Each structure stands twice: as structure tokens, then as C-alpha cells.
């Protein structure tokens, strides 16, 4: 399955990724950051738009640049790249807003067959995690290599 994605820039540790979304609203710089949490080897995935003037990141903005599918595929590709360099890490993924959590849910459901060959995915319920099953409303996800 070949997904259309944007080209990436990354630091050599493959924890920070930048790419450009190009669409009707122009060129928008996107950042994906895998930040290690207070627990060893557990990384939190952050994703947002880089403000070209202030350099700050907005992870709530809805860019609506007509390329959501490609942006999503590109974010998924950064997860693959991250694990290439950090095979023993685990990534916690949750949306910064309800709509973004929903977007991640749609993406994981959509790409699950492709994703599940390589990754073990746990879904977060109120007080525990369970092995991911399609079409369950999880609050977050914990992903690691199989």
C-alpha cells in the first residue's frame, strides 16, 4: 500500500519532523515531535502548525488546506521513521482536541490492517488500556513495535 505523503525533514535522532502542507491556503509548516515523557522510553506525540512569525506551535488549528489525507499519511510515516530509530520505544497518541482525537481514531481504523502488521496498538479507556479493536471510542493509544 503506497500512500501519498509529503517529504520530510528530521533531526538525526528522528524525534522531530517537519514538512510542508501545500494547498489552497498556501504553504503551511507542520511539526511532529516525539517527546520523551517522565517515563523511560515512553514518548508523547505532538503535532501542529508552526507559526512562521513567532515560531510557536498551534496544535488546535484546523488548517483546512485541502490535503488532510496526505497530511495524515505523512504523520503516520513519521511514526514509522521514529520507530526505525527507537525500536524499543512506546508512543502515546492522543488528540489535543476532541475533533483531533476523532481524526486519529479514523486514521487508525482506516490504516489498521497496514499498521497492525508492524505495531501493537493499545486503546485507552477510562481506567485501563486494552488491545485495540476497530470502531471503539478510545481516548488515546499506546503504540509499540511487535
Amino acid at each position, binding site marked *: 500500500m503506497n500512500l501519498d505523503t509529503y*517529504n520530510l525533514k*528530521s533531526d538525526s535522532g528522528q524525534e522531530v519532523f517537519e514538512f510542508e502542507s501545500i494547498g489552497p491556503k498556501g504553504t503551511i509548516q507542520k511539526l511532529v515531535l516525539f517527546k520523551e515523557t517522565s517515563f523511560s522510553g515512553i514518548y508523547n506525540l505532538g503535532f501542529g502548525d508552526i507559526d512562521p512569525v513567532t515560531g510557536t506551535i498551534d496544535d488546535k488549528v484546523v488548517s483546512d488546506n485541502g490535503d488532510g489525507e496526505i497530511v495524515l499519511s505523512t504523520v503516520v510515516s513519521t511514526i514509522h521513521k521514529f520507530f526505525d530509530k527507537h525500536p524499543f520505544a512506546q508512543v*502515546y497518541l492522543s488528540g489535543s482536541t476532541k475533533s483531533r482525537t476523532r481524526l486519529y481514531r479514523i486514521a487508525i481504523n482506516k490504516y489498521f490492517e497496514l499498521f497492525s502488521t508492524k505495531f501493537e496498538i493499545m486503546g485507552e479507556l477510562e481506567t485501563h488500556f486494552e488491545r485495540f479493536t476497530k470502531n471503539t471510542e478510545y481516548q488515546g493509544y*499506546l503504540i509499540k513495535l511487535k
Partner: protein
Amino acid sequence: METKIKKVSNQKMIIDNSLNKFKDRDLFPEKTNMFNEMVNRIGEDKFIKLTGTTKRN
């Protein structure tokens, strides 16, 4: 007007260590809070058992 979408199927990646500057800042404080809240909800011991991790100093 036709909009040109620069997309590729054979993705290229270039290394740019100027991106390291993003590692030093807490760019997603709400995400950090959400993670910490999740650990509290699940219970730290349970989370450590689930993930096999250890608390960093």
C-alpha cells in the same frame, strides 16, 4: 485556478539538526498534562506494569 499539491509516493527525508531546537522547549504543554492525567487515571503502578517502563529521574 489549479492548486498544485506537492505530494510524493516515494517519500524523501533530509536530516536537518536545526530541528533540535524544538526538543528543548515544552511545545505541547497540554499534551504533557493529558499524558500525566492519563497515568493518574490508570494508576502509575499499573501503567509501569503495562509498559514495562521505569520512572526517569
